């Protein structure tokens, strides 16, 4: 992926290209944003929310007065 031809505004600045995306930046976007559709029975939004609660400990140090937003 690193040597893809940069297209459509993707420049070659070191900080904007090249090395692998940090997992935490990816999870911010994949768990916290992105278009939300209610999928079929399979994994309802509520189920994913449960999973997120389990992930909180890893991604954020959550304290009772500082609940995760998701």
């Amino acid at each position, binding site marked *: *992926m690193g040597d*893809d031809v940069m*297209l*459509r*505004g*993707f*420049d070659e*600045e070191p*900080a*904007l290209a090249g090395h692998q*995306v*940090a*997992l*935490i*930046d*990816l*999870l*911010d*976007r*994949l*768990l*916290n*944003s*992105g*278009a*939300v*559709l209610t*999928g*079929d*029975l*399979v*994994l309802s939004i509520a*189920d*994913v929310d*449960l*999973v997120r609660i*389990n*992930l909180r*400990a*890893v*991604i*954020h*140090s959550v*304290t009772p*007065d*500082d609940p*995760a*937003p*998701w």
Partner: protein
Amino acid sequence: MTVAPTRETTAELSYVYAVGPAVPELERTAPRLTGMLERPVHLVEARGLAAIVSSVPEAEFGEEGFKDQLEDLGRLEVIARTHHGVVDALFRAVTVLPLRLATVYRDDERVAAMLAESGAGFTALLERLAGHLECGVKVYALPRPSPNRPSAPSRADGGGAGSGRAYLQRRKAQRTRHEDAAREAAETAARVREVAAAHAVDRVAHRPQQGELATGEGRNITNDAYLVPMAATDEFAAAVRESARDLPGVRVEVTGPWAPYSFATPQAPRVEDGDRRGR
């Protein structure tokens, strides 16, 4: 075959990565990509839109299997990077709406029905996002070396330096230093925000990063996503870096360019500005 395999082990579901316009660029790009479990990627079209989909086994991507995968950080990482790999490759060809992780349908027919149902909203959002990309900007407050750490009164060196009063004075000085540093970092973050906003059309504040995955040096105080016109990306990055150059005590990180993940929801998650959390 005398034993029919159970539905459980053979059923296939449709995993959706993104939604985009049904245009030739998308039709050319999708078949070249590799999705979940190294499986191919195909399009499901309806209403001038296309969902980008892989067939996945229910055993691993059904309700139970998926939960197990998401609860294991290693497997979650594989899923997240695969999802992102598909979205990113598509986005280099055409503007798409990335879907949130783990959007699964019973089959492609259900995906088409979903497109038909939500089509108008997708089309409006795609139009708004066309020609833009997302850049991340994170500001970190760097730790400052403190001259002395009065965790306990230091040994008295004759002049009453070890007295309770001297101790309290040192404590106060230290607290003041911390407050000054925090204020300075917050001011810098506000300035960076101002500069970034001038080069962008929208902003979403994500929650500052903490925890064991937050490995960047310093304490993350702002974690923002900006929607930037494609033609202005270089300018955006340069201006943001310049805005914090030579300022002590902070570090600024620009990430991306990203597909417009943070702007793909009609109601993006927004954190109030200046939302300061205690620890």
